[in-house]
Structure formats: structure tokens, C-alpha cells
């Protein structure tokens, strides 16, 4: 069997230094195989592991600022030993608190959930599931990772600047972000933040163009667009969203650089800074940046969420042993979400003094998104109905995703309605909403993907029991952390407050804050457990012995257990059907490569 050869050549050496098996094809050095690799699978792993590093750092930051919120009066001497002047006397300073909140937001949204989630799975799954040997441009793909890596290094270095990293919130609204003297974090830290984000935009454009080109041009024989797995459709729309919206953010950031350093007034007008005096800038609009930012910022939410939706659809169908319900409706709703994503950005700006009529248009368009979202939820539910569900850890996270997507999506209906947003805007209600629907739900999508495709990535399994522990504690923890935050929001508690003790209206939640902080720490610890499982299993996990461990229909499972660069040792297989023929005509599953039989009931 030709698969055998490829299998042995790569066995167990996907991710560490010994390259003594690399004698097939051409000689791969350590550098070309693990560092400057052009193999989409290796680049995917690079994105994943870099994303994990950032997830740990970003998560640790949230633990630190939750410590302040939960225990505002306590002092922790060890904090001073790790943070130095940022935690004098063992208490986090407001500067450090805001820097942590800002970096946590930036890192989680962009580096973890954009690069780590869509970068990983777009790279890994697109060529494997459409039946291509690699991306359209493997070299550009490699550059995409290295731009991300450079962006990461610059963001990381901003943590060590004397005046501290940027601390004006991940949305970086000017004038706060434009004026060096408005806040210590707006000095060098902000320049580094902008440079890092600019490089990140380049990375995501290089990646996105590649994903689109590959999906459109490099599908194998028989793989028509409507035979693509929903993962690929989701990743396709994600890439389109990114390519169309990231440049707008870049333009906004460039104007910000000019305002900061070259004396222009795009965003600045009528400003008097304490201790500096009146500035000469007149005629700019501070709100302009918000339009440019949210024109990316809202599609960004779907850039994060769509890949998770796609993977959940795929994993749910495989493990329910049943076709995804309403393939075309799923596709249509993805398309609708992608279009609407560009038409709702101003719902983040209802209280900026936006023209009320314009606001009303954005209310209408925003609430319209609930329709395709509802279709997706009902279709997932129907996929489970009368299925035969296998609770693999991947499947558990997929179910958890749907639960969180419902919970967080429904509060979106509250916030999208301007007349309610005028009360709830920038309160903990918003924090709860977007953490559940965008943060935790997408994380669940990412975990589902990692558990499901780990055998394909490393030829080994993750430990199941640890997976179950990871899932149940994380799901319960996510609800315990974020559900009560809705109540804080309904009390009007504003987000980004260092301390609530001076506020008669908001100080009644001290015990709740302590509870939330404690749960957050436990959940963080459980994520570390997942990482241990991940890295241990790369080297020591139970070996995969069958080509298709989940009995799945899609093409990636027709490759050898440890596919080499090029994915299939022989011809790329031809596709004869859609990927969701599960439980059809008494067959448990019919892979896409199986030709349509004469007596089959329905073809797709």
C-alpha cells in the first residue's frame, strides 16, 4: 500500500527536532521543515502554537486584572516580584490594570481568535478538504505566518517599554490613543501597538488572498462549490470579510500615525490637555476613527465566529452520523451574515451622537442578523434530532458552542436595539454578551477543531478523559463567569473600571466579583491542563492506527495518517458527492470519494 511509505517516513516526528527520517523526496533541513516551512500543515501548526502562547499570555492577563476586581483591597507581594513598578506594594496600579485589559482584548481578538483560530484551520483544512496539494501560493502563506510572528514580537516588546504598553482599550479610540500626553500608555506603547497591528493586517491579507484563491481554483475533480464541506464555505467567507475590511482598519491606523507623529488633524479638534495646554489641531473628527475601526471591527466578529460555525457544522454532522440539516440554508445564512457584517458597524456607535435616523437604519440591519443566526441554530438542533450521537471531545465542544452561541446571540438582540443600548452600552452587559458569543463560543469552536483534527495533525489522539474534564469545567465555568455579569450590567456597572468602591450605584457586587475572579482562575488552570494534554499527546499520545478514525466523509481522511508535503502520495482523489451522506440508504457513512451507486435514493 502506497500509504505505508509516507506513514513511516513521518511517524511521530512532526514537531520536534530530529529530522533523521526526512530522506524521502528532497532533503528537508530543520529550518525548511519546521521554521520556514511552506507546507500548509506546518504553517497551520505554527499559527496554532503561536496562538496558544498568546492565549496563555492573554488569559494570564485576565487573571491578573480579575485579581484586582475580585480582591481590590488585598495585596499580593508576588505581584510586585513579577510586575515590578506596575504592582507597587503588591497591588496592581491603574496604569497596569488598563494596560492588561487593553492587551488582553487586542491579543485575544486578533492574535488568538483571528490568527490562532482562522489562521490555523484555514491553513490546515482548506487544501486537505478541497483536495489540493498545498495553498495557491505556499510562499505567501509562509510570509503570512512570519508577518504574524513579527507582529507578535512587536506587541510583546511593547509590554516592556518604560511607559508601558498601550492602555486605552483594544478599540484604541483617539484622541486618547492619539495624544502622547493623555495617558502614559499612549506614548511609545501605542506606536508599537500600531506597528504590530499594521503587520498583522498584512499577515491576514496575505493569508486571506491565498485562502480565496485556493478555494476557488484548486478544488479537486468533482469538487463543485456545493460539494464543499461547510468548514470550507465558512473559511471562504471569513477570508472575504478579512480581505475587504482589514485594509480599512489599516487606513484608519495610518491616519492615526500621522495625527500622533506628524501634526495632522484627522481625528483631533478643540483639545486642551491638562498640563500641556491647548493644541493647535482644529477641524478633525474623533468619530471618523470609530467608523473606520468598526468597519473592520464588526466583520472581525464574524471573522472570528464563522470558522467556528463551519467547524461545528462539520463536527456535529460527523458525530451525529447524520447529514447537516439544510446545507443550502446553512450556506445561505453564512452568505447573509457575511453581507450584513458590512452593514451594521455603527451599532457600536449608537451613543456617539450618531444621526438618529442613521441609527435607526443600523438597528434594523443589526436585528436582521438574528434571522440567519436563528436559521443556523435551528438547523444544528435538527441535525442532532434523531441522530446517533457520539460524544467525542470535539462533539462536546461543538454542542457547547451552540449553547453559548444561543445565550450570547440572544443578548445581541438587546444591544442591537438602540433604545436599549443607550442604557446598556459599555456596561458589563456588553462584556458578558461579547465574551459569551464571540470569545468563549469561538474558543469552543477552536477546541472542537483541535480535538477533531488533532489525529490528522499529529497522527496521535488527545487523551479523552482530559478532554471531558476540560469540556465540562470550561462550559460550566464560562456560564458561571459571564452569566452573573448580565446582572452587573443591568445595574449599570460600566466596563473598564479599576475599582468600584467609590461608586454608590455600583459597589454592591464585591462578593460577586470575588466569585467571578475565583472561577476565572479555575477555568484558566483547566486550560493549562488542556495544553499539557496537547503537548504531551503530540509526542506520547495514543497512535492513530486507522486512516479515518471518526468515520468521516471528507477528503482529509483519505490522506495517509501522517501526510507529507503534497498531502496525497499518489493521485488526488476524485469527488463524487457532497460530504454529508451519513446514514443514507442504510450505510453509516459514504465518503465523498465513493462513486454514486445506481440504486441511491437522492444525489447531491
Amino acid at each position, binding site marked *: 500500500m502506497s500509504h505505508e511509505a509516507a506513514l513511516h517516513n513521518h511517524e511521530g516526528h512532526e514537531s520536534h527536532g530530529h529530522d533523521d527520517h526526512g530522506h524521502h523526496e528532497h532533503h528537508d533541513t530543520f529550518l525548511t521543515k519546521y521554521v520556514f516551512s511552506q507546507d500548509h500543515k506546518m504553517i497551520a501548526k505554527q499559527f496554532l502554537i503561536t496562538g496558544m502562547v498568546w492565549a496563555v499570555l492573554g488569559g494570564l492577563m485576565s487573571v491578573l486584572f480579575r485579581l484586582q476586581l475580585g480582591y481590590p483591597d488585598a495585596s499580593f507581594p508576588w505581584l510586585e516580584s513579577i510586575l515590578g513598578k506596575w504592582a507597587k506594594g503588591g497591588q496592581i496600579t491603574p496604569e497596569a490594570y488598563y494596560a492588561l485589559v487593553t492587551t488582553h482584548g487586542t491579543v485575544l481578538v486578533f492574535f488568538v481568535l483571528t490568527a490562532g483560530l482562522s489562521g490555523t484551520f484555514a491553513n490546515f483544512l482548506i487544501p486537505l478538504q478541497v483536495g489540493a496539494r498545498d495553498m495557491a501560493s505556499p510562499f505567501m502563506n509562509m510570509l503570512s505566518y512570519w508577518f504574524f510572528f513579527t507582529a507578535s514580537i512587536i506587541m510583546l516588546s511593547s509590554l516592556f517599554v518604560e511607559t508601558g504598553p498601550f492602555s486605552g482599550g483594544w478599540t484604541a479610540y483617539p484622541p486618547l490613543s492619539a495624544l502622547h500626553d493623555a495617558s502614559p500608555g499612549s506614548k511609545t506603547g501605542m506606536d508599537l501597538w500600531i506597528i504590530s497591528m499594521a503587520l498583522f493586517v498584512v499577515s491576514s491579507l496575505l493569508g486571506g488572498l491565498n485562502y480565496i484563491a485556493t478555494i476557488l481554483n484548486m478544488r479537486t475533480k468533482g469538487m463543485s462549490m456545493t460539494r464543499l464541506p461547510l468548514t470550507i464555505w465558512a473559511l471562504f467567507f471569513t477570508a472575504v470579510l478579512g480581505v475587504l475590511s482589514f485594509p480599512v482598519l489599516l487606513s484608519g491606523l495610518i491616519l492615526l500615525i500621522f495625527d500622533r507623529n506628524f501634526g495632522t488633524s484627522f481625528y483631533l479638534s478643540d483639545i486642551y490637555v491638562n498640563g500641556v495646554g491647548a493644541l493647535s489641531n482644529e477641524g478633525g473628527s474623533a468619530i471618523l476613527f470609530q467608523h473606520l475601526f468598526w468597519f473592520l471591527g464588526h466583520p472581525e466578529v464574524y471573522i472570528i465566529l464563522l470558522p467556528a460555525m463551519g467547524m461545528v457544522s462539520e463536527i456535529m454532522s460527523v458525530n451525529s452520523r447524520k447529514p447537516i440539516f*439544510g446545507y443550502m440554508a446553512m450556506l445561505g445564512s453564512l452568505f447573509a451574515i457575511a453581507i450584513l457584517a458590512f452593514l451594521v458597524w455603527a451599532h457600536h456607535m449608537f451613543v456617539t451622537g450618531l444621526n*438618529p435616523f442613521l441609527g435607526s437604519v443600523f438597528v434594523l440591519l443589526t436585528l436582521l442578523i438574528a434571522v440567519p443566526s436563528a436559521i443556523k441554530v435551528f438547523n444544528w438542533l435538527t441535525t*442532532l434530532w434523531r441522530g446517533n450521537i457520539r460524544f467525542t471531545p470535539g462533539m462536546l465542544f461543538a454542542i457547547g458552542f451552540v449553547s453559548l452561541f444561543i445565550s450570547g446571540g440572544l443578548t445581541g438582540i438587546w444591544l442591537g436595539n438602540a433604545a436599549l443600548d443607550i*442604557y446598556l452600552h459599555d456596561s458589563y452587559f456588553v462584556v458578558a454578551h461579547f465574551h459569551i458569543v464571540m470569545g468563549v463560543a469561538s474558543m469552543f469552536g477552536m477546541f472542537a477543531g483541535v480535538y477533531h483534527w488533532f489525529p490528522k495533525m499529529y497522527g496521535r489522539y488527545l487523551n479523552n478523559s482530559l478532554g471531558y474534564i476540560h469540556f465540562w469545567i470550561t462550559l460550566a465555568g464560562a456560564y458561571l463567569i459571564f452569566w452573573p455579569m448580565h446582572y452587573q450590567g443591568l445595574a449599570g456597572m460600566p466596563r473598564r473600571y479599576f475599582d468600584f468602591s467609590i461608586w454608590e450605584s455600583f459597589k454592591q457586587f464585591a462578593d460577586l466579583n470575588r466569585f467571578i475572579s475565583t472561577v476565572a482562575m479555575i477555568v484558566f488552570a483547566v486550560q493549562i491542563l488542556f495544553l499539557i494534554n496537547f503537548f504531551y499527546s503530540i509526542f506520547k499520545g495514543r497512535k492513530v492506527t486507522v486512516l479515518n478514525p471518526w468515520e468521516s466523509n471528507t477528503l482529509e481522511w483519505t490522506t495517509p495518517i501522517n501526510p507529507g508535503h503534497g498531502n496525497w502520495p499518489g493521485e488526488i482523489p476524485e469527488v463524487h458527492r457532497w460530504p454529508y451522506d451519513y446514514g443514507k440508504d442504510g450505510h453509516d457513512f459514504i465518503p465523498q470519494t465513493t462513486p454514486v451507486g445506481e440504486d441511491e435514493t437522492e444525489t447531491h
Partner: protein
Amino acid sequence: MSLILSVAIIVFIFVVIFQIAKASEYVSILKGEEASRQQNNKINGFLMVAFLVLGFVGIYVCNKAYYGKTQLAQGAASVQGEKVDEMLFVTLIITGIVFVITQVLLFWFAYKYQEDKNRKVFFFAHSTKLELIWTAIPAIALTVLVVFGLRNWFFFTGEPPKGAMVVEVTGKQFGWIFRYPGKDAVFGKKYYKNIDPATNSVGIVWDDTYSKDDILLEQTMYVVKGTPVKLILGSRDVIHDVGLTHFRLKMDAVPGIPTTMWFTPLYTTKEMREKTGNPNFAYEISCDQMCGNGHYSMKGVIEVVDQEEYDLWMAKQKPQYFTAFPEKDPTAVPVAAADTTAKVATAKM
């Protein structure tokens, strides 16, 4: 030391969990992977329905513990706020019904349709009828919410009724400045380059005759119960936000671009102290837009009083013009005795 100890404990717990998980993997291989997979499937299926039940218990407990601490329990303190609360409950009911139905179905289906060797799955790829139903129902529900919401939105953002009081609010790092137009009911012009933190914190143009009676205050502003008040918002430096939790409104204060909001307070501060049973109750203005390191302490207070008390208070306010140019103050210059009484009056405030 305690840090090392707690790290050691955490590491120990990790090692134990990890070893157990490892061992269970070996056991599953010994027992036969298929058998142990089926057993795990049963456990997880049960946990699905357990999670559903415990989840609803948790929601009940959470609601019991914290509903009383929200603004909803206390009730809104403005005409606008009452509309917000009403709309909030309607939205809660609609989304709440959807929440319960979908979550119950999700976890119940997961439990009910867990793997069973004898079940034959139902090949059900699509149904146009079903898909149309769950496109139409959300669309109708949302239309109701949109209509309801927009009616309120245009009321909130529309013009206040005639006779509304007008106050200008300016944010700065980190506090609030309030300007009343004085007897002529017209604000004098301002220009930011005239700002002088000591005597002219918003940059009033003193040449403008309308500016002569403008009153400047910091920290606390007064409004009248039952009288609509329109706030003209601005900022001196970065973007701030006037958050009025009890009135259920907020609006950004943007440098260079004036914004407005208006509301009609329903209860005086005193009445609210009785209503809430909190002797320290205050209508706090919270800054709701990240504005720098002092963001969390950027507090203002709105005193809601009745007309009589307001008139008394207003009578005691001195136009800022006389603070900036004490020599032009007619009450201060001519008679020394009058000057001291004025000072006593100010001191009493």
C-alpha cells in the same frame, strides 16, 4: 513562600488528574476500546441532561441573589428610563422564551439521541417548509422589537419639549464641568484656546455679552424634578461619556463635536433616598468611555430637587465672569459689608 506552595499544590493536582486520565486510557484499551467508548458516551449523555437541569437551577439562584441589586428592582428615575425598562422586559420575555426552548432542545436531543447500537438515524437533509417556518418566526418577532425600539429611540433622541432647562456638560480628564446659561438663557460663545484651568475651564469668550451671566460649576449639577432637561455635551480632551444609570441614558462627550441628550427626572434625590432606603443614594454620572488611567474615578453628581429648592440654589450662584474678573463684580466692589455677607453665603453652600 505561599506562592511557591500554591504553585506546588496546583502542579500536584495537575499530575494527579493527568495520571488518572492516562490510566483510564490504558484501562479502556484493556477493556476494549469500543466498550469503553460506549460507556463514556453514556456518561456524557447523562451529563448533558444534568447540565441542563443544574443550569436552570443556577439561573434561578443567580436571579434570586442578584436581581435585587440591579437597577430594574429599583425602578427607573426618568420618563425615558421607564420606557427603557418596559422595553427591556418585553425583550427579556421574547428572548427568554427562545432561550429556554432552544437550550432545552439542544441538551435534551443530545441526551435522547446519544449513540445506541439499535437506532437507525433518520436521513433528513433538508425541509423547505421547516426552514421557512424558522425564517419567518424570528423575522416577525424581530419586527415587533424593531418597531417598539425605534419608537423609543426617536423619542429619546428627538427634541425635548419646549421650556426644557438647558445645561452644558464638559468632560475633562478626570471630572465634569457644568455650565448654566444664566438669566438670559443663552450660552456665551466659547473657544477652546481661551481655556484657563483656574478661571475659565471651558474657554468662554468673555467679549460675548451672553457670556457675562454664565455660571460654571464642577462636580455637582442641579436639575428640577418633573422638568425636562437638555444636556449639551462636549469634551475638552479625550472622548468621555455621560452615563446616567438611574435615568437609563448615556451619550458620548466628544471633543470638537457637541452632542445632546435630554430626560425628565421623576424623583428628587431625597425621594430616591427614601425609595431605595439608602441614605447615601446619589444620581451619579459615570464616565462610560475609556478616557485614561483615572477613568474609574470620573464621577459627577446630579442633584434632583424641586423647583423651590432649585430657585434658592440658583439665586446663590455667581456668574463665572465675576470670578474671572473680580474687579467687575458689582456685589463685591462697592461696600465692604456686602462683600463679607456674600462670602458667608458662599461658605454655607
